[in-house]
């Protein structure tokens, strides 16, 4: 459903992403992993159409998304990394605004918003300004905004950030259920356990290039680690966590 072909992005001649290719099919949940600065956010921005690639293309149902961005975005639900919402709007006002801008008929919108707010435990504070919301509450508002118009493609950038345990459990189940319903989901996260449990496929990035991609089980088998943490560490080899831990303890204890 969503294809990235040789995506490349340079920021002032510094490559952020190079020759990134993947194919996200309907019903797949593709987990995107990588250390800080590996190009995850740039990838997300390119596949949502927020950032123009220096080279390469993103195809939605075989068509370049740049040809009809508005049409593509009608089918896209997006949860950005930062819950940067308008603080002077209430949660309900924000969702109504998103619904109206998405062209959802008013008759359906109010009911839908209220039901989702109630299910995600935001109903009591629906009329409070977003400025007073906690990070988890803002994240839930963003999730509702992304799901409001029943999109075909969901792009989630750290969607569990700040969520409490029960909301996180609901979301994990929801992502799996949406995948089963045929939605294509691109899931970006640092939390390896969640990616391991939720994602059917993996895309591991380092310094803007793909280190590994394919079904989660296949990658683990290929690397020879039972856990995703071991696989990730084997591939990325960014730092030696034991050594860094020892050094930090030494500095803290120093007089």
């Amino acid at each position: 459903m969503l294809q990235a072909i040789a995506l490349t992005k340079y920021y002032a001649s510094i490559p952020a992403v190079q020759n990134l290719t993947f194919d996200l099919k309907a019903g797949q949940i593709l987990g995107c992993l990588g250390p800080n600065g590996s190009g995850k956010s740039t990838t997300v921005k390119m596949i949502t159409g927020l950032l123009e690639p220096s080279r390469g293309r993103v195809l939605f149902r075989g068509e370049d998304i740049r040809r009809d961005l508005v049409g593509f975005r009608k089918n896209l639900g997006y949860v950005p990394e930062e819950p940067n919402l308008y603080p002077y709007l209430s949660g309900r006002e924000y969702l109504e605004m998103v619904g109206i801008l998405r062209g959802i008929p008013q008759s359906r919108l109010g009911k839908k918003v209220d039901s989702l707010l109630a299910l995600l435990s935001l109903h009591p504070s629906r009329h409070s300004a977003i400025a007073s919301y906690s990070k988890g509450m803002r994240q839930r508002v963003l999730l509702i905004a992304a799901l409001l118009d029943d999109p075909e493609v969901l792009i989630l950038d750290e969607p569990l950030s700040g969520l409490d345990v029960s909301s996180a459990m609901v979301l994990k189940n929801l992502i799996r259920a949406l995948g089963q319903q045929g939605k294509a989901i691109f899931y970006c996260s640092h939390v390896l356990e969640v990616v391991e449990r939720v994602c059917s496929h993996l895309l591991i990035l380092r310094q803007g290039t793909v280190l590994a991609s394919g079904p989660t089980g296949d990658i683990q088998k290929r690397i020879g680690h039972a856990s995703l943490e071991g696989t990730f560490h084997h591939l990325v080899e960014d730092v030696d966590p034991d050594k860094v831990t020892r050094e930090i303890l030494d500095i803290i204890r120093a007089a």
Partner: protein
Amino acid sequence: MIRRTSLVAKWEAHVREPFPLLVRLSMNRIFHGTNGGEEEGLTISMGLLLALLAIPGGFVSIFLFDKYGSFLQWLRGQTNFDPLAAALPDEYFFIVLSMVVTGGIAVWWWDSIFPDRRDFTNLAHLPIPASRIFLANSVAILILTYVCAIDVNAASSILFPVIVGASQPKFSFMAQFAGVHALVVVLASIFSFFAVFATAGLLMLLLPYPLFRRISFYVRTLIATVLLATLSTSFAIPRMIRDLPRTSHSPLRFLPSAWFLGLCQLLRGRADRALAELGHVAMVALLSACAVAAAAYTLAYRRCFVRLSELADTPPGNLGTRTSWIFHLLDRLIFRTPFQRAGYRFVLKTLFRNEAHALALGGFLSLGVVFASQTLLSALNGKGISPLPTANELSIPLILGYCLLLGVRFVFDFPAYLQANWIFRFLLDGNIIYESIALARRVMLCFVAPWILLVAVPTYVYFWGWTIGFLHIGVLTLWLWLLTEVLLVDFHKLPFACAYPSFQPSAVVAMIAFVLGYFAFTAMTADLEAKALVSPGVGGVFLVISLGVWYTVYGIRRSVVGIDNHLMFEDAPARHFEFLHLSDDG
């Protein structure tokens, strides 16, 4: 009733359409600023802002009753009173006022005129064409420009013509006068807004984005200073306007406020050739400002908003490591306790790295520089240096000190990044109110001390000798210290860390107090000091006033701090009314 209800329903349905929704969103952003009233925590309601903007025009108009009242003219023996000729300087003042206030608003909204990162995050991934966001923002800018232009000039457009035309027998005179006045001041406002807007757009277009962000603060401060300097021309320019036909290379031809005065006289049919020329320049300038603003905005929008996710968010200023020797010096000399040392570093860095705070302080400093230079000009005014300094000459450092101290105290109340103030709540035991006052006092005095030592002392000693020089510096230091104490009388906060600015509920009163305080602190003190230099016995008055002020401040602080000696992080507005519960059953 049914018709009204259906109209309301239609209106409600209309404002929930996508485009009006986007317009409202843009208006909110421009009004609340790019931080959306969240990080800065400073929220001024639209009503309060409109009231504050309308006040100057109303006030000045009321003061003009004295000039135009027919009974008072009769008492003064003014029989051949030409209201149109007499109104010329006042008309010029209203034109300048409208330009300064509207230009000031544009400077304040500088960052929020263009859609920001938040808009990009929330809107760019939705199925709305970018052109529609652009159009909505343009409509929002136009609406807010016209609302501000009309609000700033509303009071003067009604009161001024009524005052000028009240003694005239024909109503048509008043109506005509009102029409021309309203049109010219509103056009002057629009010109001023779009001129600032065009400057922002051009800079954004021509400079690399990080450089634009870095120099924005300096450009804004410069524009604010130019606007204030224009305000100070209102006393001299009307006289020069009368000589305009005789001077072919007058600098007035380059002054936008003079162009609009020319337009006013042209519309009234009282313009000579030179003024008529200026009137035509006004129209050309207005159209050019609008056209340049529109073109720059369109191109800058394409360049910046569409590529917003690529552009680095560069902070506006950076103290860097080169200034660390200043901190070490201040540690040794002034800030002795760990709290004070940590506190003043936080205060200075917040002040200079935060554009809104730096801009507000820059505004107060510009005000001081403009007032001081005006006083200096009228003090010199073709005369040489007299053996004893005049009141005007003595008042200059007082003016600068007053504006600077008030500016620093004012910005202390501006919250900054309130989400980050948990660290102070966590680390400070709260019971350090005196330390907090000492910190604020020392920081405030640090802002004025260098000027006193490096500029005021050498200047006064050079021109009037050691005795007068040191006597004046003594009075100046004492007065600035007392002013600092007065300004900190109920200070219960760590600068920038409290959610609620204390001036917010009484902004109008605070503004009036600022003006009255200015005259008391600068003009009255300098007058008294000049008299004391002639007859030293008057100097005793200083001692009495100083002791009185110090005793009052000390008493108030003891009672206030005695009741509550905790630092406040979430001050609340005073209630407008309270239930007294006088009976048992409430």
